[in-house]
C-alpha cells in the first residue's frame, strides 16, 4: 500500500506550498473584500458587506478601462516586435539558438523596478533619445514622453517582451521543416508558405503569448508609477494605494477580486475558443 500512496506523498510538498502560499491568501483576500475594517487599527470584522463592489466599480471603472487599453496595446506591440525575433531565432538561429534565447532573457537578470527606472532615464525629456532628437531639431523642444500613456505602454511592452517571444519561439520551433518543404513543393511561394503554413501553425502560440503577456500587464502598477506620472492611473496602482496608502483593505481586496474575475473570464473564453490543451503546450 506504500506504493499506492507514493504519488500523493510526492505531491505533498508542492500541494502544501500551493495551499499555504496561494489558496489560503486568496481565500483571505476574498473574505477581506466582505469585511469592514477600521483604517486606524487595521482590525477587520466580517460583515458580508457586498456594497464594496459596486462602489469600487463606480469609483474606479476608468482605471480598469485604462488598464485594459494599456495592456492590450502593449501586448499587440509585443507580438509585432517579438514575432520577427522568435521567427529569426527559430529558423535561422542554427546552433546558437540557445545563445540568442539567453540574450532575450538577459534584461531579466536585473530587477523589474531597476529596469523600469532605467527606462525613465531613456525616455527623460533631455535624456539620450529625446535630448538628442531635440538637439537635432527633429523634435520640438517642448516634446515629452515621460508622464504619458505612451511611456507606460513602452515600459510595459519592454518589460514583458520575453513572455511574448518565448511562446512564439516554441510554436515556430515546433513547425516541422518537412511540412514547410511540402508546401514549397506544392507551389507555395515563400509568402504563401508563411501565410498558409507557418502562421496557422503558430496561432496557438500567439494566443498563449497573448494570455501570458496580457494578464500580468493588466494588473501591473510599477510601469505606471515610474513612467506614467500622475495621470494614466492603472488599476494596479489603485489597488496598491488602497492597501498601502489609504489602508482601505476591504476596498483593495474587492478591486483585486474584480481584477481576478476579469482575468478568469478572459482565460475561460480563451480555453473555450482554443481548448485548454494549447495553453499547456506552450508554457
Amino acid at each position, binding site marked *: 500500500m506504500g506504493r499506492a500512496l507514493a504519488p500523493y506523498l510526492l505531491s505533498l510538498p508542492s500541494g502544501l506550498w500551493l495551499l499555504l502560499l496561494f489558496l489560503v491568501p486568496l481565500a483571505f483576500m476574498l473574505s477581506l473584500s466582505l469585511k469592514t475594517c477600521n483604517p486606524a487599527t487595521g482590525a477587520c470584522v466580517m460583515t458580508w458587506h457586498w456594497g464594496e463592489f459596486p462602489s469600487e466599480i463606480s469609483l474606479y471603472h476608468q482605471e480598469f478601462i485604462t488598464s485594459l487599453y494599456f495592456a492590450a496595446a502593449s501586448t499587440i506591440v509585443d507580438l509585432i516586435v517579438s514575432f520577427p525575433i522568435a521567427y529569426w531565432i527559430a529558423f535561422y538561429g542554427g546552433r546558437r539558438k540557445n545563445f540568442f534565447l539567453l540574450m532575450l532573457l538577459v534584461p531579466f537578470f536585473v530587477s523589474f523596478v531597476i529596469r523600469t527606472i532605467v527606462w525613465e532615464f531613456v525616455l527623460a525629456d533631455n535624456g539620450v533619445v529625446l535630448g538628442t532628437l531635440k538637439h537635432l531639431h527633429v523634435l520640438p523642444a517642448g516634446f515629452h514622453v515621460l508622464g504619458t500613456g505612451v511611456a507606460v505602454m513602452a515600459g510595459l511592452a519592454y518589460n514583458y517582451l520575453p513572455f511574448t517571444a518565448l511562446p512564439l519561439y516554441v510554436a515556430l520551433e515546433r513547425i*516541422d521543416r*518537412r*511540412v514547410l*518543404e*511540402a*508546401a*514549397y*513543393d*506544392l*507551389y*507555395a*511561394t515563400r509568402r*504563401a508558405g508563411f501565410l*498558409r*503554413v507557418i502562421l*496557422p*501553425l503558430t496561432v496557438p502560440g500567439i494566443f498563449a503569448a497573448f494570455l501570458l503577456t496580457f494578464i500580468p500587464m493588466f494588473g501591473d502598477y510599477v510601469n505606471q508609477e515610474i513612467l506614467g506620472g500622475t495621470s494614466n492611473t492603472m488599476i494596479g496602482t489603485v489597488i496598491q494605494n488602497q492597501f498601502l496608502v489609504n489602508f482601505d483593505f476591504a476596498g483593495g481586496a474587492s478591486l483585486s477580486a474584480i481584477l481576478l474575475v476579469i482575468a478568469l473570464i478572459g482565460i475561460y473564453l480563451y480555453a473555450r475558443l482554443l481548448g485548454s490543451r494549447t495553453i499547456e503546450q506552450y508554457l
Partner: protein
Amino acid sequence: MALRAEGETANPVETGERASGKASRPGRTGRILAVESADVEFVGVTKEFHDLTAVDDLNLKVEAGEFFSLLGPSGCGKTTSLRMLGGFEEPTRGRILLGGQDVTNLPPYRRDVNTVFQSYALFPHLNVFENVAFGLRRRRFDRAEIRRRVSQMLEIVDLPNYEKRLSTQLSGGQQQRVALARALVNEPKVLLLDEPMSALDAKLRRQMQIELKRIQAQVGITFLYVTHDQEEAMTMSNRLAVMWHGRIEGMGSPKDVYDNPTTEFVASFLGASNLLPGTIESSAADVVTIAVAGGALMHVPPQRVSRLETSSDVKVGVRPEKIGILELGNDVPASHNAIGGRVVVSTFTGVGNQYIVETAIGVNITVYAQNIGHQSAPRSGDEVILTWPIEHTFTVAPLPTSVEINETEGD
C-alpha cells in the same frame, strides 16, 4: 496512358504559369490527369556538403512514363539526388533537366514535380480535403474544379469520405495515401517518392506496392522512387539504379541488374550472391576460365565477365537459387561449374530450404532450394557437391579489402 473524362479533349497542362486573380480557368476544367509526363536527366550532377560528397558526378536519364527506382543503402546519395530534382538542394556542379528544360536553379514551387515525403509531411492544421487541395489552391484553380479534382483523387487512392478528417486521425497507410493524392492531384510531370513505405509494416507495405504500381499505370506519370529496400525496388520498377557512395553502381531493368551485376556491391546489395575470389587464368572466345583459391577452375561466359583492366583478380559469383545440391559421388552435369563442401546449416523456410555450405577454400556458400517435395534434403554435416550452369556464373571486380559493404537501413 492518360485517363480522360467524357467529352473532354486532352491538352497538355500548361506548366509553370500562374493565373492572375482567382478567375475560373476554363482551359483546365474537366480533365482527369491528362498529363504529359516528362523525362528527367541528371547531367554530371555533384553535390558536396562541406567535405562530404553526397552525389558524385551523377549521370542518369529517366524516360517519360517510367517507374524508376534509386536504390541503395543509407547515405548513398539517393535522397540527395531526389531532393535536387525537387528543388530542395542545389547541385554543387552539373545540370538537371526536366522534359528537356533546365530546372537546376528553379525554386521548388516553379518545378512541375511533386514529392511524396518519407514522413508524409501532411499539413497538421488542415483536413484531408485541404491537404489534397493545397497545391491546386496555390495555383488558383476555381472552387468547383478543386472540389472535383480532389474528390476524384481521393477515389483513386481509395479514401472517399475522409475529406473532413485531420491527418492526425489517420493510420499510417491512410496518411500515405493522402500524401500520394496531395502530390498526384497536381498532375506533375514527374512524381518523386522518398522512401514512402518506410513507416508502414511489412504487410501493408506489400499491399501499397501493388497499389502504387496500379496508380502509376493509371495516371501514366513518371515515378522516381527512392528506397533502400531492394525487394520493393525490384517489384515495382521498370528500371532501377543501384547507388553507393554517391555513384551509380549498376543500372537497368531489375532482371538485368540482378542477373548481370557488374560490381561486387550490386551483387551483394541487390539480392544475395556467393562470391569466390579468383584469378583469370585464360580467356577464350566462348569461355573465360578462372582459378579460384584452392585451385578449382570456374568457367564464365565472356559477356558476363566484369573486371578491372589493371588486374586479373576477380570474384566469381553465383546467385543462391541457381545452385543445385548433389550427394557426393554423383557426376557433375556438362556445362556446369562445381565445388565440393559440407553442409553446416540447413534451414527449412516453407517455400524451400536454405543451406550454408562450407567449402574447402574457406568461403561459405548459400544455397536456396525450392520445396518441390521429391528430394531428400541434405542435412547438416553431409558432404555435398554444389553445381550450377556456366551461363549463371558471373564475375565482378573485387572491392579494395578496406571497403565494407554496409547494408543498414534508413536514411
